[in-house]
């Protein structure tokens, strides 16, 4: 039996990349809970040997564990939304909401590259589109924009309704995007039914959905 090659290897790679980042974040959450639970165990063993327990310390540890459970829950909620983005090939999407989700999913990448990414305030920007491919386009665009912004760079994202669709501007680029990066973005934009452009004068990456 011959092997089958997935039709959309890019999409599969993107899914894998995001899943790996999520698993990494969850491992960190579990590691913190593990240490805090371990401290509670250490204190209990010390108390059994006659050492006095500080109730305030115990409350603080319990709060830290609850905080991490909340953080883990947020990560899993994002993971769930991301996983369900492949349910329908085309549906009504809120581009602002998708953008916020992608920024959350790329937090670790931004932190590793020492770049701050912020979504500017605005209203919902709805339209019909493919949620998964749109996320892949935004994520790839942000990845290249982070490289362009460089260490300690700041990217600002503006999402707004325009002409029955949506415009998304990523500002804060510091260097032109490499030609192959732009070609890759254009290829994904084509699949997402979108357009991509870079304004070199103002260093803005623009998506039109």
């Amino acid at each position, binding site marked *: 039996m011959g092997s089958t090659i997935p039709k959309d290897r890019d999409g599969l790679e993107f899914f894998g990349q995001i899943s*790996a980042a999520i*698993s*990494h*974040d969850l*491992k*960190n959450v*579990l*590691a*913190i*809970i*593990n*240490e*805090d639970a*371990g*401290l509670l165990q*250490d204190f209990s063993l*010390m108390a059994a040997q006659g050492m006095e327990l500080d109730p305030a310390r115990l409350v603080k540890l319990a709060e*830290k564990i609850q905080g*991490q459970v909340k953080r883990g829950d947020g990560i899993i909620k994002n993971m769930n939304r991301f996983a369900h983005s492949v349910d329908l090939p085309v549906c009504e999407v809120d581009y602002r909401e998708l953008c916020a989700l992608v920024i959350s999913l790329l937090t*670790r990448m931004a*932190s*590793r*590259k*020492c770049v701050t990414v912020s979504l500017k305030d605005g209203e919902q920007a709805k339209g019909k589109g493919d949620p998964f491919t749109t996320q892949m386009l935004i994520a790839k665009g942000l990845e290249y924009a982070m490289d362009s912004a460089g*260490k300690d760079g700041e990217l600002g994202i503006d999402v707004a309704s325009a002409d029955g669709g949506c415009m998304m501007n990523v500002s804060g680029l510091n260097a032109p995007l490499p030609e192959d990066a732009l070609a890759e973005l254009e290829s994904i934009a084509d699949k997402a039914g979108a357009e991509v452009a870079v304004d070199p004068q103002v260093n803005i990456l623009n998506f039109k959905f």
Partner: protein
Amino acid sequence: MAEKVLLVDDEKEFVEGLAERMELRGMNVTACTNPQDALDKVDAEGFDAIVLDLQMPGIDGIEALKHIRKSRPEMQVILLSGHATVEKGIEAMKLGAMDFVEKPADINVLTDKIKKAQAKKMILVEEKTEEKVKDILSHKGW
């Protein structure tokens, strides 16, 4: 003798919790959340073991490991990772890391590895001292 340990991870709460547990076990711990600060500490003072996260902002664990192996080869590095794969761990071992631990870490396993790191460092320092003494004796005509 208390093991002198440098603990480096950008997750502040993780570093705080683990450092306290290691101190309860009699270790002398310096905690650090910034990889560059950690490398400065490595250059400035001695540690028996360095517990280093593999993925950090700016400088990743592999780069930090290369720096430590070059500037202070006697210090033993134990890499910590939230990666669920062993690929990076193998790369780290090839680059001279003493060991590799996956998060969440078992404190008993980590403590055991730190004790082994201290013993290994002491042997290396003794060997280096012996070499120096031999070198001095061979060059001085007394």
